[in-house]
């Protein structure tokens, strides 16, 4: 009797579940983001909190500080920047998108996440709004393409007919940081010169390592490192037209890049650094452990802080030892594009959407961009990037301005998160020695091709 009851209960449960699933078929939604109006609508006078969601790092605090300037123009609005640890950044935003309800008004998305957000219909289409309200001629076309457009143009240049889903918030790229007190004032001319100089410095200074860079298998740490190498050696991540990854990323240039990374660069890094990301690289440079380091410019604020550095007791003393330059060229002079764009959540009330759009319009003014630069942000307007206000604000801001014309991003497909998981895991496997470099690259290419094929590509 008891057994029969259990069987009937299980069958009922199965039937209920199957019915449930069967009932759910068909189209469930619109499949595209709502459009922001071309003209800014009337703004509310009610007290309002405009909320951003970003990850925990110095620019997030700078953005909240900048929000106080916005409050001066809109006294009923306060700006709050909520942060999560970097590894949870994507999940924190997209799980709320999944719930069709967000506790943030402006999600700050990595440039590669735009495709996923657009495909899911989670952010507003800003095309008409931008045309009407923002002077886009002031931006490098690549910024507009990378931080706002989807699908991104194959050339990386903004397509005037493409749809815009965001505007640049923070521009960023890698800077080379080297110990000029040990290696001289002149930066190495090529990537291979840099490796040789780092090795020489390591050999001459006992206890020091030659290099520090991002190697972790989490986030985009190891992935960006390989992409830098791939681009420098003339490789490509994929062929967008033919939807091909296999045979492209692991061609001769790609293999050379992986070989240099694993066999020439990794041996110069500190022991156990294959799980390093932003904080660990900063710590190694500040503690005087390495000769050359590579870091995102927006994350370099702490390097010149005497409170966390063993290189000097004042900023000036530290700057007598550290120097900054754009990445050396090799076969090409490409640099990685970092940074993020400003977007508006589809799942917030209209009055909040209007306020968010007003913030975006205000943020793109030269005054707001200059203030953003003063607070430690990296602006994207050409006039501000080339202004003394920005260039003299930090010893490394010029690195970004000099790198703008050579920036290169990776795919911003809806499948980015899955592709990145494979990319990071396999590059980290090669770096940590759990797989031979060529084998890891071939597996990376095959797994990514499978993801692209299953999704149908673009």
């Amino acid at each position, binding site marked *: 009797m008891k057994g029969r009851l259990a069987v009937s209960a299980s069958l009922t449960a199965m039937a209920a579940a199957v019915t449930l699933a069967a009932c759910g078929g068909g*189209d469930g939604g619109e499949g595209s983001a709502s459009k922001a109006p071309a003209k800014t609508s009337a703004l509310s006078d009610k007290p309002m909190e405009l909320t951003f969601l970003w990850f925990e790092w110095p620019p997030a605090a700078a953005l909240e500080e900048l929000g106080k300037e916005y409050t001066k123009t809109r006294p009923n609005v306060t700006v709050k920047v909520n942060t999560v640890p970097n590894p949870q950044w994507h999940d924190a935003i997209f799980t709320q998108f999944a719930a069709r309800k967000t506790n943030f008004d402006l999600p700050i998305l990595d440039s590669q996440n735009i495709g996923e957000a657009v495909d899911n219909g989670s952010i507003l289409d800003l095309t008409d709004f931008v045309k009407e309200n923002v002077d886009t001629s002031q931006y490098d076309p690549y910024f507009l393409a990378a931080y706002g457009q989807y699908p991104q143009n194959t050339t990386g240049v903004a397509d005037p007919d493409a749809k815009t889903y965001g505007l640049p918030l923070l521009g960023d790229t890698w800077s080379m940081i080297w110990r000029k007190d040990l290696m001289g004032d002149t930066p190495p001319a090529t990537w291979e010169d840099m490796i040789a100089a780092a090795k020489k410095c390591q050999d001459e200074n006992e206890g020091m390592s030659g290099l520090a860079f991002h190697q972790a298998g989490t986030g985009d740490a190891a992935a960006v490192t390989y992409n830098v190498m791939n681009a420098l050696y003339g490789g490509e991540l994929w062929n967008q037209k033919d939807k091909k990854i296999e045979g492209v990323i692991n061609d001769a240039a790609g293999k050379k890049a992986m070989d240099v990374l694993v066999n020439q660069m990794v041996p110069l890094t500190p022991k156990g650094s294959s799980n390093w990301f932003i904080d660990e690289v900063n710590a190694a440079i500040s503690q005087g452990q390495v000769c050359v380091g590579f870091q995102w410019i927006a994350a370099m604020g702490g390097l010149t802080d005497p409170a966390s550095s063993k290189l000097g007791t004042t900023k000036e003393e530290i700057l007598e030892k550290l120097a900054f330059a754009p990445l050396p060229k090799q076969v090409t002079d490409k640099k990685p594009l970092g940074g993020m764009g400003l977007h508006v959540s589809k799942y917030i009330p209209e009055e909040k959407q209007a306020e968010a759009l007003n913030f975006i319009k205000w943020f793109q003014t030269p005054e707001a961009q200059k203030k953003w630069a003063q607070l430690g942000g990296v602006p994207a307007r050409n006039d501000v990037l080339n202004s003394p206000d920005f260039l003299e604000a930090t010893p490394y801001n010029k690195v970004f301005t000099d790198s703008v014309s050579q920036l290169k991003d990776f795919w911003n497909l809806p499948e980015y998160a899955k592709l990145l998981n494979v990319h990071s895991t396999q590059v980290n496997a090669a770096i940590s020695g759990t797989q031979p470099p060529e084998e890891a690259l071939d597996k990376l290419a095959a797994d990514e091709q499978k993801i692209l094929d299953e999704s149908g590509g673009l």
Partner: protein
Amino acid sequence: MANTLQTPPQSAPQAERLEAPPAAKRFAFLTDRKLSFLFISPAMALLLFLSIWPLLWLLGLSFTDYSATRDSGWGWIGLDNYIEVLTSPVVHARALTTLVFVVGAVALQTILGFTIAFLISRRVKGRGAITTLFLIPMMLSPIVVGLFWKFMLDVQFGVVNSFLDSLGLGRVEWLTQQRLALFSLVIVDTWQWTPFIMLIALAGLTAVPKYLYEAAEIDRASEWFKFRRITFPLVWPLLLIAIMFRAIEAFRLFDLVYILTGGGPGGTTETLSFNVYKVAFFGFDTGLASAYGILMVVVVTIAAQFYLRYLNRLQES
């Protein structure tokens, strides 16, 4: 002689008719059966809405291509998700990693936990204080445990490597070398959860009747004989229950992997739970992740059933 035997009454005495007090009368419709339903209904409602309904929903989703973030509805794809999970080489590799972890961690915890409990049980003074001290790791959040072990095991700045270095043993890549990383997870999990086994074993040890030892003493039995023939057989069934709880917990290990290794180096410490998380939240393949989750529940349930049968047989014998 007085007749003390009374003739039994011909008919049963009339029972005094009980009048229900006014308050109870008002609720006369509440029979015992209805009342019992009423009392258990809050718990049943919680169970239904927080466990059974989500499980059924999960089961339903596992037969679809649903994605939580896409605004495109879902379609019925039958057993495709189950076939994909069961035939995936990545899942096979993660299952092997999980198996190695479960066997390694639970075996180590059982040996250490039982040994500590046995030693504590033989001590009379300060037993309570020592037991409490041993329980501290178990009371900490796994995230906190993961974070401080991450700092302690760091190659460059960690206290463990500084100590090894000072002894001239060199620095060890605890978290970034393929086999050592999984071993480190076993060590950290053992540090945190050995007290659980210890606690259960201690309860078993203190429940062993003293007279058995006294009888053995009279027969001049050795310490080893007493342990082998009295202590261990009586504690073993309880220990088996603790092992089952720990094995189930270890099977779904996620937090320590997330904090300590992030699944690295090269994905070699990724467990099944960590892999489900990636499937569920990297690209939001909700249908596939649901099938993956259901299969994990099925595996644990079947294993637990076999285990419990063995346990019942052991107790019966």
